[in-house]
């Protein structure tokens, strides 16, 4: 199948004004500004097929938001090209944005003074959504996200979690084929996170919506995504399925054993260094075991190891992951 999103070797360098300390330097700066080049996105490529949900992760400052902005058409790449749904986002912005939905968890797109429902109504006019589609989507979404209680409240009175749900609905009312979420679960409680995850999954399954989303919560990734792209300092360092990353890079396994006397023992070991046989032999000879369970590797731990460079990933081939 043809990819719906194609990103080829995009780069974005920010020019940051350098500030030096001291009066002399300040005055000198007035006449001759010094700039520093920040390589926020440094040669990233990938392609995504229709209907995929891709988790986009990386440490703070890795370049995730910058990439999302380029995909949404509100930032020009310095080099490279993007083609999404047949459009070049930054060149055909007006046409293109009708087909996408974007949620920036950190920045609300709702009108602060208006009740939520009126912000939604504005979307109807902005996107020229047919009345029937609008009503249908609105009912479905508000029900799924459990929003009846606060839909008539002005946005400025909403809690973070309520506002976020409002933002998500506002971005999806026009049934976009492609949705970008930049940290949609930031600062939310477990229940709210769960609701949003279920909703994202639901949209993907029922509407075949193609979704990219960034997060720092690995639970989001594990529960929602099939595919994971990891970037660090502007470069892609992993692109593949979640299962694969677990199998390949989960070095440490944890075994929990319950003893006859009711006590619980936990043992963590590195599969590459001590084979499973040895560990088991040791355990069986040492304890009277009532029950045993081998825990699945936590994606959290893997990602931590990757960010802290404790494991080295195989170099990724540009555009891999088909």
């Amino acid at each position: 199948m043809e990819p719906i999103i194609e990103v080829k070797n995009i780069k974005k360098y920010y020019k940051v004004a350098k500030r030096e300390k001291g009066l002399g330097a300040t005055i000198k700066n007035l006449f001759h500004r010094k700039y520093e080049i920040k390589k926020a996105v440094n040669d990233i490529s990938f392609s995504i097929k229709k209907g995929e949900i891709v988790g986009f992760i990386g440490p703070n400052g890795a370049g995730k938001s910058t990439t999302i902005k380029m995909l949404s058409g509100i930032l020009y790449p310095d080099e490279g090209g993007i083609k999404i749904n047949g459009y070049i986002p930054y060149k055909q912005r007006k046409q293109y944005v009708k087909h996408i939905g974007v949620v920036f968890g950190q920045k609300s797109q709702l009108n602060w003074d208006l009740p939520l429902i009126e912000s939604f109504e504005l979307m109807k006019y902005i996107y020229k959504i047919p009345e029937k589609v609008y009503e249908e989507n609105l009912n479905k979404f508000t029900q799924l996200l459990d929003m009846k209680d606060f839909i008539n409240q002005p946005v400025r009175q909403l809690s973070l979690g309520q506002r976020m749900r409002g933002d998500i609905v506002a971005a999806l009312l026009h049934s976009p084929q492609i949705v970008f979420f930049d940290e949609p679960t930031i600062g939310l409680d477990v229940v709210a996170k769960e609701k949003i995850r279920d909703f994202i999954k639901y949209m993907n399954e029922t509407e075949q919506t193609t979704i990219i989303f960034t997060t720092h919560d690995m639970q989001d990734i594990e529960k929602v995504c099939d595919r994971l792209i990891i970037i660090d300092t502007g470069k892609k360092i992993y692109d593949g399925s979640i299962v694969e990353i677990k199998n390949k890079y989960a070095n440490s396994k944890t075994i929990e054993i319950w003893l006859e006397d009711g006590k619980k023992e936990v043992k963590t070991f590195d599969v590459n260094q001590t084979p499973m046989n040895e560990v088991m032999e040791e355990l069986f000879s040492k304890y009277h075991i009532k029950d045993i369970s081998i825990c699945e590797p936590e994606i959290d731990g893997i990602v931590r190891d990757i960010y802290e460079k404790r494991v080295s990933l195989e170099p990724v081939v540009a555009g891999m992951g088909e």
Partner: protein
Amino acid sequence: MRTYLEFAIKKFQNKMTYRFDFFMEIVNTIITIVVYLCIYKALYGGTKDIDGITYQMVATNFVISMGLSNAFKFNEMFLQDKIHDGTITNEFLKPVNFTFRMLWENIGEGAFKIVFNFIPALIFTIFYTSFCPPKSIINFLVMLVSISLGYLILWLISFIVQTWSFWLFSVWGIITIKNVFVNILSGSLLPIWFMPDLLRKIISFTPFESIYFTPVRIYLGELSGRDILSGMAIQILWIAVLAIVANVFWKKGVKKLVVQGG
């Protein structure tokens, strides 16, 4: 068009929720107008006219220009705030023209204030002092068109200054100075009739005269026939010039945003 009208309507409804605010604004408008009328009443002190300008004409000028300048106020820090908190980029994610959206929201606010601020203040001042009636119904209707053109001039001047916040950290000071200029040179503090000839000549080459003074003169019948047409042609010319300038700044600002990322 429907979409933009909807922005205006939403803004109008939105304003309705702040009732106390608008009550205070009526009082504010009434007080400023009455204070100025008192001063001019004293200045006239019983003389029928000064250089052919009667007290009634001055009062009419004040009520229209000052009353409307209160009604035509809107949040001029809007663009700067949006640029500072970064929400400006959200606007580029929507398939609507953000500039028109701003304009129509401001129009919605203006319409609200005309209905709930200007008209009540006008009714109050009618009891307080006497005004000139419009020269004719036609003059009155043409004045309404001319006021709309005046609003666009006022709005475009504000918008141009607002776009400078793409480059400057704060445009608050510039906006304050701009408003002093607009208030003085548009004749809403001192009627343009009483300005020295040289200043009057200079003002006639600026867009400020076209904001309130042209509509006032149409209403009073100071302009008639061909002069009305040329007055309005000048208004339209200024709108065109200002719109071009505004567009240049806006495009450059947006370019800076999408190329440099803020």
